[in-house]
């Protein structure tokens, strides 16, 4: 008896599977999976073959097969027609890029500032290290004051160095650090105000936040540098760096307020209600219950806005402050080192410095985000 639905012949043997391990299988899967994939791979390879060798040759010194002049070279080597990047120029002007016009015999002061900052920020950034509260107070409150007196001088027999002489990477770091340190408390207050039930306070906070978020930083800096002297009582002079700091702080506090608001809104209502049911006052419930949780959640957001602020500090060069970018820009017209690749080398150097800082911070923020993502979101 035969059923029509039962096969009578064996199924054709399937071809042996292609190997699924090893580099060839990997390439087949990831580079040549389909014809269009292969086409894209070929095009990308063509593009890379076209673009990478000239860039490599430009950036790398000759002992690595490139045309660049390594640190220690002379300006004549840089002026050769075929020369690549002039790293000799960067190393020769390095102190200018780091300290600006800071007097050379006082370099130990900025160096001490850098060292102290590194010592304080590393344990702060590693979650496992204890004494977070002391550490945070030291970094956010004590450190800026110490830095100011250390850099400005005039006390303990240190000669005074006016802010006009500060410059380079030092100023870039100062502006971004002061900007973020001052704007965290202001931002928290603004965020709380925006969440408040009191209409006047809420309106004022919203107006403040939206105004600064709506305008470009460059207009804020212009405003700070032109209008701040007008706002002060007659006779007061406002330091140029201070004006920029005020502008940057106003600007970044508005952005930070929105970041903190995100954290406040992410907390479940139960936390607010629990705090009230314990009979805590508004400020106590904020300080002990709400903010510790909300701020922990927004650490990645704060780091991200710090990255944005760090990049934005380059704008202060437009109002005439010698930050890293402005020192590079100013040095590019240095006749002693004039060569065809002088400007481009300077920009490459500044770009690398900014990139290293920002990329490291963004990796840290991503890492923190993963760590904090404990899976039970509001």
């Amino acid at each position, binding site marked *: 008896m035969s059923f029509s639905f039962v096969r009578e012949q064996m199924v054709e043997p399937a071809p042996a599977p292609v190997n699924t391990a090893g580099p060839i299988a990997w390439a087949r899967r990831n580079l040549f999976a389909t014809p269009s994939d292969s086409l894209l791979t*070929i095009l990308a390879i063509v593009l890379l073959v076209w673009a990478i060798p000239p860039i490599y040759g430009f950036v790398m010194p000759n002992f690595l097969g490139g045309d660049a002049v390594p640190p220690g070279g002379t300006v004549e080597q840089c002026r050769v027609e075929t020369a690549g990047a002039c790293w000799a120029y960067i190393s020769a002007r390095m102190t200018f890029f780091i300290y600006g016009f800071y007097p050379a015999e006082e370099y130990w002061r900025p160096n001490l500032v850098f060292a102290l900052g590194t010592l304080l920020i590393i344990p702060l950034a590693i979650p496992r290290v204890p004494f977070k509260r002391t550490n945070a107070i030291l970094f956010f409150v004590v450190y800026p004051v110490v830095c100011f007196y250390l850099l400005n001088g005039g006390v303990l027999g240190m000669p005074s160095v006016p802010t006009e002489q500060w410059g380079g990477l030092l100023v870039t770091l100062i502006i971004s650090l002061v900007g973020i340190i001052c704007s965290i408390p202001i931002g928290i207050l603004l965020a709380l105000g925006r969440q408040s039930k009191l209409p006047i306070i809420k309106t004022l906070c919203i107006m403040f936040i939206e105004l600064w978020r709506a305008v470009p930083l460059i207009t804020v800096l212009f405003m700070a540098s*032109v209008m701040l002297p007008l706002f002060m009582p007659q006779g007061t002079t406002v330091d140029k760096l201070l004006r920029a700091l005020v502008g940057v702080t106003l600007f970044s506090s508005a952005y930070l307020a929105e970041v903190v608001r995100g954290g406040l809104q992410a907390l479940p209502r139960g936390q607010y209600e629990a705090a009230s049911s314990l009979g805590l006052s508004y400020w106590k419930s904020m300080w002990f219950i709400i903010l510790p949780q909300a701020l922990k959640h927004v650490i990645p957001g704060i780091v991200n806005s710090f990255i944005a602020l760090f990049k934005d500090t380059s704008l202060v060069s437009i109002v005439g402050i010698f930050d890293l970018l402005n020192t590079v820009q100013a040095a590019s017209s240095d006749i002693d080192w004039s060569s065809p690749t002088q400007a481009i080398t300077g920009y490459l150097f500044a770009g690398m410095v900014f990139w290293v800082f920002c990329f490291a911070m963004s990796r840290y923020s991503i890492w923190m985000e993963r760590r904090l993502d404990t899976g039970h979101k509001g």
Partner: protein
Amino acid sequence: MAVQDNIAGPPRTAFYNDPVIRGIIYQLVVAGLVIAFLTWIILNTAQNLAAQNKSTGFGFLFETSGFGISFTLIPFDRSSYYWQAFVVGLLNTLLVAVIGIIFATMLGFVLGVARLSSNWLIARCATVYVEVIRNIPLLLQLFFWYFAVLKAMPAVRESFELPLSIFVNQRGIIVPRPLPDFEIFWVAVTAVLALVAAIAMVVWATRVRTKTGHYPAVVSRASRIAGLIVTFGVGYLAISLLGTVVPALSLGPVFPLIGALVLAGISLSPYGRYGRVFIGFAIGWAVANFLLGGMFAGLGEGIIVLGAALVALGIAWTMLSADRRSAATEGKLPLALPVLIVIALPALVYWVTGASLAFEIPVLERFNFAGGLQLVPEMVALVLGLTIYTAAFIAENVRSGIQAVSKGQTEAASSLGLREGDRLRLVVVPQAMRVIIPPLTSQYLNLTKNSSLGAAIGYPELVNVFMGTTLNQTGKAIEVIAITMLVYLTLSLTTSAFMNWYNARVALVER
């Protein structure tokens, strides 16, 4: 268990402990402080202004400016008023913003999709781009493009010459200037109408098909004829281009004509796709040959022709396999008919009205180019910088938007029997767009705000013309800064109004 019953009365608290009254007191205190602070500022400002003998008011807007602007969209000279300078700056800002937004959107979407590509190399390249560009300040990038790239271009006499009479030198990019006559206006009108008509036709045909299962008979018949014509045209182009790669094939105008006729004939036969593949191969070969020749000028011609042939083979293979995969299902409405409508109608009007679109070709004279349209390097650098920088951010928005659509949606679409393209078009992209558009609008706003950095490289946009030159000349700091900030505030509030409206419209209706 006695229940205390003496708690019914109102709690007796001091009036300053009543939360409502407390709230009012707090607010009054804050409002009073703010008002006091503002009054203090205003009084100080008035004193300072009086001490500097400065007046306030917006009368300066109607005074003669006395300066020139290097790049204007509307007529402007030294005798123009300050408000005209304001308009010039605003228009320049908007011009750069619009161009930047268009390019950044295209580049950003390509990069965002590329980051998610299953092709390892493509995904890696896109990641490197995004990570490098996002972490370098925009101002530095602008300086790089302006001072290190565009200003380092050769002098006028040694300009780079690109195809189509485009010249690149220190003074920017010089392109042919179109000289339209009056009849071109009608051609343009026809082009717009043809585009509308083509879209309407496609929409109508699709609707009929959704209802009845078939395209309307008129459309199918017209499509077939249009397909024939387009195949003939493209085939002619392909064979002519082939002549540029293989000189032996350029046998005068007759050969491409015959070849195109043959290709059109093939397209009617069951072997139509081989004709299409051949056309793809020919055009791909010619284009790749041209591009590779430009990129690797050092290599021998034979190697380049060979490499280009390899690329073209890749294209042909891709087309062949794509064709094979979609052969089993009923085709979509062929693109030929709408394409023909959009191209042929304006061409017909162009021919009938005798319109002529001449181009003024830039010619190198003793010191500079005569004729042509000069794109100033400031603008080129600003557009380039804004596009490249913003595209990296848009790419991230696009990537996260696509990733936000859960895998279940794709699987559900597959289980309904939708093919890859339809899955993306009908299921994934509409849902991803809901996530992408809000951050995208804020990227557009960021780009517009960032265009103010043009001031640093001398592009005459709003901040440069108004907050820079006008402020310096008139000294009206408060008025000028207020107006400028108001412009950006308006742009920003308009954008966020749009965003709120869009969010409300597309928000998921939850139970």
